[in-house]
Each structure stands twice: as C-alpha cells, then as structure tokens.
C-alpha cells in the first residue's frame, strides 16, 4: 500500500518466519554491531566533520529522550511542548549535586536526578493536566520556558554561565580496543587509535556511547513492560477518549499524571547523561527549539511506536552531522521534512505495529475506515 511500509513489512514477516535460535542469533548480532559502530567506523555511515562516537552518543541520548516523550505523547496523548524542561532539570540536578554544591559521585547523582525530575513532573502535572488538548500544549511550553529562565536568573544554579566540571562515570581500565580505519572500502586495524575499556574521558566518547546504548536498551525493555500491561492500556484508552475511559473505570487523571511523571523521569535520565558527557552545561542548551525537535522526533517516528521514535531520533541527529554542508540549512530542511511528512505520511515513518496489523486485515476484508459510519458518528459526542 505504501512505498515505505511495504518492503519493511515483508522484512518483518520474513524475520518472523525464521526459527527461534536463528532469530535470537540475529538479534544478538545486531546488538553487537550497534555497540561496535564507533570502533568499526563504517564508511558511508561515519561522519567526516565531527567525531563519529560523539555523534553516535547524541543519537543514543536523543533516542532516550524520544522514548520518554513517546510515553507522554504517543501513549497517553498529552501534547507536551516543554519536555526540554525535564531534560534541563535532570542535567542541572547532576550539575548541582556533582559539581556546584556537592561533590557526590555520578552513581548517586543520576538516581537523584531521576527522582528530582519525577517529582517535578508530578508537581507540574498535578495542576496542569486538568486542562485539555491545545491548552496543555501552551501551558507545558510555558513551563519549559519558565524552567530555562529560572536557570538563567538563579545564581545558585550558575546563572547564564551554567555549571562546569560535572563528574564522569567511574572508570575502570581493563584493556584497549583498537579502532578500524578505512581506505575506500578496505578496512585496516588502527592500533594507534584505541579506546580504553572502560575509561570515561573528555577525549574519547566511545565509552559514553556504550553507556548510553546500554541505558537505551534497558529503558526500551521497561517501556515494553509498561505498555503491555494495564498501565499501557489505560494510557491508550485515555488518549482515545478520555470521557469514555473514565466511565469504563479508568482513573484517567491518575494515569495521565503517571505518564507525565514516567516521561519526566526518562527525560531527566537523558539530561543527566547529557550533563556527564558535556562536562559543562548552561541554560542555552535547553531552549524551546529543543522541545520542538523532541516532539518532531516522536511524530516523525510514528507516535506510539518505540522503534519508530528511536529511528526518527537517530535520523534527525545523524543526517545534519553526516551532511555537514547542509548544516546551515539544516533547520530549513528539517521544517520542509516536517511539512512533507504531515501531508504525505501523517502516521509517521513507522506507525504502531498493531495499527499495521489491523490495516492489513482491513485490506483483506475490504473494510474502509473512512466509510465506517461509527467513525462519522463519533463526531457528535453526547457526554
């Protein structure tokens, strides 16, 4: 039915048909390749003008952001335009606890940052989640901006200069990993450029990338556990029709707040990751334009599909780095892409799997959603 989904679908079906051990082996291989990407430096994918490992780290970190925001927008249907605020709270919590006002190790700072952002999510959500739809969008936008302005104007938080010397994760030097270099399509082992396993330093982003990928994989798993449970169902029901959900026994407000807090916690975790990698953070890292970028990741990827939003996050970060000559025009192209997407593929690159399955059965049965009378009748709601 569509040039993009058709090949994807056949790949998925072929993959499903494989015997179990082969499937697992395949998954393990993919994960290993993902981990080894900055070591392999594959030609065509690697970035010439900026450190490839740092770009990969950004991809992983923004994937985490997208997964978190996907819970809020994709699952629970709450349009949050101030998500960067939670990202900032996470980063500055680490900054305050690890550098500015205490010298706690990162192992303690990060969980603390998650708790702080979660609490801030509840504090912001409790009053605002009662307003609906578009109002929520503008209120969250306002909150995101308030958080940034508080950062700029509070000298305790470093003011406009921000916080520096944010601690790195604990290091442990076990062995060295040589990188690969390429001449054309021939690979060489580069023994002079090595990554110390596992030393986090400003000069080598590879260990940070490994850390970020590990966190992304764990969070993806947790996300799956949540979605496939009463919690995930309640979120979706609330998104679909809040009144009907409430009348079917879903405590919608409680679940919206839960989505907000969970999303915030993941946003805070990504902020913490950002802070430790950057070493130095200031309020300019957290302007509204990032919130918009985050929302774009979720929508481009396909709201509600965790793989979709991860793909979108990776693409939106990697493309401008790869094609640096476009970097001047990156936001222009980005805007055009959003418009084109909205017009030609509103469901996102990868719409939720369930929807695909249903589309297929709909095609088989020849049932057309648009001709469905129930669909039209819904417009005149009575409650």
């Amino acid at each position, binding site marked *: 039915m569509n040039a993009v989904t058709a090949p994807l679908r056949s790949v998925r079906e072929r993959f499903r048909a494989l015997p179990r051990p082969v499937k697992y082996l395949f998954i393990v291989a993919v994960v290993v390749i993902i981990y080894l990407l900055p070591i392999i430096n594959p030609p065509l994918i690697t970035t010439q003008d900026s450190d490839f490992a740092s770009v990969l780290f950004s991809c992983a970190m923004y994937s985490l952001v997208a997964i978190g925001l996907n819970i809020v927008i994709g699952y629970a249907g709450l349009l949050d335009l101030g998500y960067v605020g939670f990202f900032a709270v996470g980063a500055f919590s680490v900054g305050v606890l690890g550098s500015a006002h205490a010298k706690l190790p990162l192992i303690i700072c990060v969980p603390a940052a998650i708790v702080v952002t979660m609490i801030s999510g509840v504090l912001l959500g409790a009053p605002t989640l009662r307003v609906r739809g578009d109002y929520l969008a503008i209120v969250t936008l306002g909150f995101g901006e308030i958080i940034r302005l508080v950062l700029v104007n509070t000298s305790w938080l470093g003011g406009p200069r921000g916080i520096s010397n944010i601690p790195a994760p604990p290091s442990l030097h076990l062995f060295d990993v040589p990188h690969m270099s390429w001449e054309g399509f021939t690979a060489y082992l580069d023994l002079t450029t090595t990554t110390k396993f596992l030393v986090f330093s400003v000069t080598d982003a590879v260990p940070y990338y490994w850390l970020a990928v590990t966190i992304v994989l764990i969070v993806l798993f947790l996300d799956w556990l*949540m979605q496939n449970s*009463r919690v995930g169902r309640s979120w*979706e029901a609330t998104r*679909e029709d809040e009144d009907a959900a409430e009348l*079917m*026994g*879903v405590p919608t407000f409680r679940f919206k707040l839960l989505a907000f807090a969970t999303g915030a916690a993941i946003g805070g975790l990504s902020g913490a990751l950002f802070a430790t990698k950057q070493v130095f953070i200031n309020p300019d890292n957290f302007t509204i334009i990032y919130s918009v970028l985050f929302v774009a990741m979720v929508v481009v990827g396909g709201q509600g599909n965790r793989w979709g939003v991860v793909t979108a996050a990776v693409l939106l970060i990697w493309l401008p780095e790869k094609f640096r000559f476009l970097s001047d025009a990156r936001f222009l192209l980005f805007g055009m892409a959003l418009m084109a997407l909205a017009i030609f593929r509103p469901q996102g690159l990868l719409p939720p799997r369930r*929807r695909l399955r249903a589309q297929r059965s709909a095609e088989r049965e020849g049932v057309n959603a648009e001709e469905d009378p129930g669909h039209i009748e*819904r417009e005149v709601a009575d409650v």
Partner: protein
Amino acid sequence: MSEEQTMSQRPEGLSETPDTSVDISVEEVAHLPEGKMLEVDDVTLRFGGVKALDGVSFHINTGEILGLIGPNGAGKTTCFNVMTGVYQPTSGDVRFLGEPLGRQKRFKITKLGIARTFQNIRLFHNMTALENVLVGADAHHSTGIVSALLRLPKHRREEAEGLDRAHELLKFMGLERRADELARNLPYGDQRRLEIARALATNPKLLCLDEPAAGFNPAEKVKLMELIQSIREQGYTVLLIEHDMRLVMGVTDRIVVLEFGKKIAEGLPAEIRDNPAVIAAYLGVDENAS
C-alpha cells in the same frame, strides 16, 4: 476483489452469530439481594434556566430489565448521565444498593457496579476489539506501574483473568473473530455490540444501554433485544433506553416514561401501552383532547 467489495457493502455486517450459551455470569453480580438496586429519588437537574430533569423518581429492581422511554429530548440520556456521575443533580439523590452516589468520581461509580454504553458509539477506535474489552475488565484490576515493571504475580493473574473474560464476552457477543481488529474498522453493528461487551467486562451490577439498537434495521433490532434478554438471564440487571416503544414492550419487565424531563408514567409494558398520557406524548396530541 469483487468478493471483497461485496463484503464491505454488507450494511451491518454481523460477522458471526452471538453464542449465548457461553457462561458470562459473575459471582459478585449473580448473588445480589432481591429488591431495589438503584433508586432515583426526586432528581432535578438544571442547566441555567432549563430544567432538564424535573423531580424524577423511579427505581430498578435487581434482575429486571427496565425500559426508559420517551420522545426525543425527553431527558433519557441526561438521566443516564446523572446515574453515571457525568452530571451532578441540582437536587435529589441517586442511591445505588442503598448508598447515595453523592459526588463520587465517575470511574469509582463504574467500580461500584454501574456500566454504560453510549448513544453515539464511543469506543477506543485505535485499539483492537480485544483491547477495548480488556480496558473494561481492568476496571476491577489494580495492577500499577510497579507490578507491571516487575511482572509481579498480580500482573500475571490479572492479565490472564482479563483475557479469559474478554474472550468469553467476545464469543458471547459474536465478535470472537474480530478480536484483533481495530475498533474503528469494525462494521457498525459489531461496534455497537463491542460497546456492550466492553461495559459487561467491568462486571456491572447494573448495565445501562443507551439506545443500543440505534441505526439498526427492524430484524437486527429484534436480534439485539434477544441478546439483551440473554444477558439478563445470566444474572445482570439492565436499564434500557430506547426510542422505539414497540421494541421495548417485548423485552422489558417494567417501563418508565419521560417527557420534557418529567416522569409521566411507570408500569408494566401492557399498562404503558394503554396509558393515554404516553400515547399523547408519542403522538404529540394535547392531553386534554385525548
């Protein structure tokens, strides 16, 4: 292709016949004491200057099918909304199993045991039929984020119980084959029945159906009424709003008639049929003239 087209043109497209032999009864519902289950006591509801309900009183007995009828705009759906907590009555009381509903939250009223369907279908359109029913079943579950993340026994038990219940209900309503389809892709008739299945999944002591046969042709209406009767036979109490008086006569035990927000009659179907006020209300005749 041509075959597919004929399928899509099936007007109400009942995909399979309901299997009313499936046991969908629930312990907590089946053994309720005899007597008044729900009492609407002198309820008045004002919107600004308009009295949408004016001193309405009636009750529903455990195990019966009560019909709530009246011409368009008589206040039937409003009455429903008061009973399910969507509106708060301006004065008067609604008592469920002897307890006033007061200012209970809407989802709590559902948990107490009142479930409803909607006059305009309000399914979760982008969820599958099965998931729609599961959401209903979740009303009596309590898995939270911790149980879900740790896959505690509670999560497993409740998921299994919910799935069993959902499949049971889908089979009963004749929707089993549609379980994995998105609600919005279901034919109209199936959507209506899915709403009933979803409401039943909450284990309601009282099932409120708001014009469940709206948009059906006469033959389908009769079939649906038979289905509602078999729901009652499994121990549920049903409140049925229906516009079509003849239809209601056949299935209900008692009937309450509303007009302009007031109760104008209450009684057995036979009594209602011969009640001059009701006839006048339906035919639009001046009461004094008749």
